């Protein structure tokens, strides 16, 4: 067994186009949510989204690459390049074969599906662009990252809806910890802010029309986001031997399935995943100083997650800050856990716990400290990052500050 550390981070989100910008915005309590621009807002009941701002793919990728990729892979390539450059790793022959690329995505190349099938069904087109299939396949982003950086170990995508990124990161963590791999490039990516997807979420009646207010009494739901968060995992001894910057130790991972309802969350299932992460990390509840909550802002999630935290952490749940950064970057589905892991790294490294913004008044069954509206100086020794998905799939990461 090897200790596993994070030595590179990259991120694009509605809060910024680098990991540093994303982290800084979460500390300042900035909102990345605004009226949607890539879909006609007049056709939507809930018009808000967390889209990337001032982002031109041509600033990052050449025309031939752009021709072959959906936007979701573009985001993964940009965040991946940042993370790998940040780590300082180069994938020479030996390391290349012992490095995995495992990415989470909820739906893959949805913009490609949406645009091209519209041409076919609605506009009477008789042929599709030849790269529709390689652009829409869910593993495209992972494959593109291997090609861009010459990484020749195992590479695949993991789909577990809103837990995809955490499942991917946890899977990569296991491979490095066991010694099967020496390093991993992992995280999540999602970009499905399309007319079809937004109407689909609208129909579920879980989308807020104005603001995402996790844990507040007047919360009305989530707001869809997009983005990619990528991290580089390495064995501690390798990172130390080459003098790499270490952001934090990835110490444990817990998973569970509710085996209950497809969309209604279960406190018991979530609590089992939280306990599992603590056990895996060799931590007690008292070791945790911060929890980055799943915190979608839906009526169902927030009291259920609150109950789960109390079940898993006991009285200690009342003593620590628990915030939802989705209030700022939106719910990026298959990328959510990665955007939140990077926000959590900011908390561990800077001793600043990010707030839950647009918080008004605590909702029924929401009686913990959600760090309302303003970041807080706290020495964070260890933290949890929760993801709970439709399908009853729960995945929790445990992180430890590395001094």
């Amino acid at each position, binding site marked *: 067994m090897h200790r596993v550390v994070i030595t590179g981070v990259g991120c694009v989100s509605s809060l910024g186009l680098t990991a540093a910008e994303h982290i800084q915005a979460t500390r300042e309590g900035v909102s990345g949510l605004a009226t949607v621009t890539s879909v006609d807002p007049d056709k939507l009941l809930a018009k808000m989204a967390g889209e990337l701002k001032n982002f031109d793919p041509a600033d990052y990728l050449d*025309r031939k690459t752009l021709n*072959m990729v959906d936007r979701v892979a573009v985001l993964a390539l940009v965040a991946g390049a940042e993370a790998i450059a940040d780590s300082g790793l180069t994938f020479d022959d030996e390391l290349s074969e012992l490095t995995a690329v495992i990415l989470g995505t909820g739906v893959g190349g949805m913009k490609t599906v949406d645009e091209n099938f519209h041409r076919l069904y609605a506009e009477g087109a008789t*042929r599709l*662009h*030849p*790269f529709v299939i390689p652009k829409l396949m869910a593993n495209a982003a992972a494959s593109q990252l291997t090609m861009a950086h010459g990484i020749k170990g195992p590479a695949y995508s993991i789909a577990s809806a809103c837990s995809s990124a955490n499942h991917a990161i946890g899977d990569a963590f296991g491979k490095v910890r066991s010694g099967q791999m020496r390093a991993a490039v992992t995280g999540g990516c999602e970009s499905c802010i399309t007319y079809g997807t937004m109407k689909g979420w609208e129909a579920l009646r879980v989308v807020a029309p104005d603001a995402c207010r996790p844990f507040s009494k007047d919360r009305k739901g989530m707001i869809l986001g997009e983005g990619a968060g990528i991290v580089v995992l390495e064995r501690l001894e390798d990172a130390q031997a080459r003098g790499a910057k270490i952001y934090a130790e990835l110490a444990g991972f817990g998973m569970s399935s509710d085996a209950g309802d497809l969309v209604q969350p279960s406190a018991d299932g979530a609590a089992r995943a939280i306990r599992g992460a603590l056990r895996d990390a060799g931590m007690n509840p008292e070791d945790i100083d911060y929890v980055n909550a799943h915190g979608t802002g839906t009526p169902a999630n927030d009291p259920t997650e609150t109950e789960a935290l109390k079940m898993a952490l006991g009285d200690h749940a009342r003593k620590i800050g628990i915030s939802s950064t989705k209030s700022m970057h939106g719910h990026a589905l298959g990328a959510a856990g990665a955007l939140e892991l990077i926000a959590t790294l900011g908390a561990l490294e800077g001793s600043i716990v990010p707030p839950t913004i647009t918080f008004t008044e605590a909702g029924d069954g929401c009686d913990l400290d959600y760090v309302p509206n303003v970041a807080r100086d706290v020495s964070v020794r260890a933290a949890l990052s929760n993801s709970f998905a439709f399908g009853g799939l729960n995945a929790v990461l445990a992180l430890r500050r590395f001094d």
Partner: protein
Amino acid sequence: MADTRNKIIQIIATECEIDAAQIVPEASLDDLGISSVDLVQVMFQIEEEFDVYLADEEIGADTESVGQLLDAVEKLIAAKST
């Protein structure tokens, strides 16, 4: 027909990022570095431009030179206008 040829050469130049001056009938697709995926992309753009369908028997893995490609497309366009 010169106009058609120029349009096809321009499509190849754009899609494959090759200098149009190099795209002459005698040039082989291999020598120009045009991969099978590039060719699929070129075929798609030609179909869009001229509203024709390029069947696999006309253009595909057996197409070796720019000249073969130009001839095949010109034949299709001619057949369409008669």
